[in-house]
């Protein structure tokens, strides 16, 4: 009896392990299929846990990094990206965004690192440690979510200017809420794809 149970355990364990390895291989491949698949899953998850995801923004981060643009939610970039950004604040996309002292820098860095995008999202071909993506707008999932929006509504819209200006259309962006059913483009009104 014990021997049979052991065999069943072994078989079940092997099946689970094989499944996990297969899933890992598919994810790691990062091809279009797995990307879309995950994207749909995440889209669903976003709707389900919209409110749960509204974790409070660190006040130091909000104060130091939320003046010229919204305090972009840490989860939108992997930790390697945040590290690269934090190490180049004197040339922050052409602006100077230096922090006033080391303790402030540490608080912001630690917060971003702890809340950064979890590994699965990062693994899907969003760059590597040596060359991490620096712009949220350059990420595949971001481009996917925003394709089909006429440029006249974004770069050609003085009240929007760029896709990086989240708050122009996502009213509650500063709180990390990007519900696609609550999008309103300045001068054009409600937008729903």
């Amino acid at each position, binding site marked *: 009896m014990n021997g049979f149970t052991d065999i069943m355990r072994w078989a079940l364990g092997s099946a689970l392990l094989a499944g996990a390895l297969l899933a890992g291989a598919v994810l790691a491949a990062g091809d279009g299929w797995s990307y879309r698949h995950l994207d749909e899953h995440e889209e669903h998850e976003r709707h389900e846990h919209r409110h749960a995801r509204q974790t409070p923004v*660190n*006040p*130091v981060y909000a*104060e*130091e990094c939320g*003046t*010229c*643009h919204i305090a972009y939610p840490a989860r939108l970039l992997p930790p390697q990206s945040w590290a690269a950004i934090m190490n180049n604040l*004197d040339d922050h*996309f*052409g*602006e*100077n*965004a*230096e*922090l*006033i*002292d080391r*303790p*402030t820098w*540490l*608080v912001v860095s*630690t917060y971003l690192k*702890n809340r950064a995008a979890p590994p699965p999202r990062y693994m899907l071909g969003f760059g590597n440690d040596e060359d991490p993506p620096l712009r949220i707008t350059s990420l595949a999932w971001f481009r996917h979510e925003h394709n089909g929006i006429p440029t006249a509504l974004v770069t050609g819209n*003085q*009240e*929007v*200017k*760029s896709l*990086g*200006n989240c708050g*122009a259309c996502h009213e509650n962006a500063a709180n990390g809420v990007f519900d696609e059913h609550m999008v309103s483009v300045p001068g054009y009104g409600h937008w729903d794809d």
Partner: protein
Amino acid sequence: MRLALILIAVLVSSPSLAADPVNTLLNEYRSVAGANTTFDARAGRAFWYADHDGRACAGCHGTTPRDTGEHARTGKTIAPMAPSVNPERLTNERTIRKWFLRNCKWTLGRECTAVEKGNLLTWLEQQ
């Protein structure tokens, strides 16, 4: 460790207990520039409008400190600098330090001198 860092940051970022952050900073700039230094509001005004290879304070802040400016890249509005229009301005020592650091380096390519900052603060305070 993390909590300690946050506490330090919160303490550091609290508005200075000094009654007048501008006076505190002017005294500091004077101690750097020399005890006999007198800050000149007119020089501060000239500094506001001075062009540095196409960049100037007035370029982003709006023409005068009473105007609302706009961030050149992101389009985000910059509230007026003049305390008479925007009473929140020049009330937080740390905020003044932060923006002098960032904006001087962007506009001039270097930190502003104690005299430049003293002159500009003296003029801005009167606006």
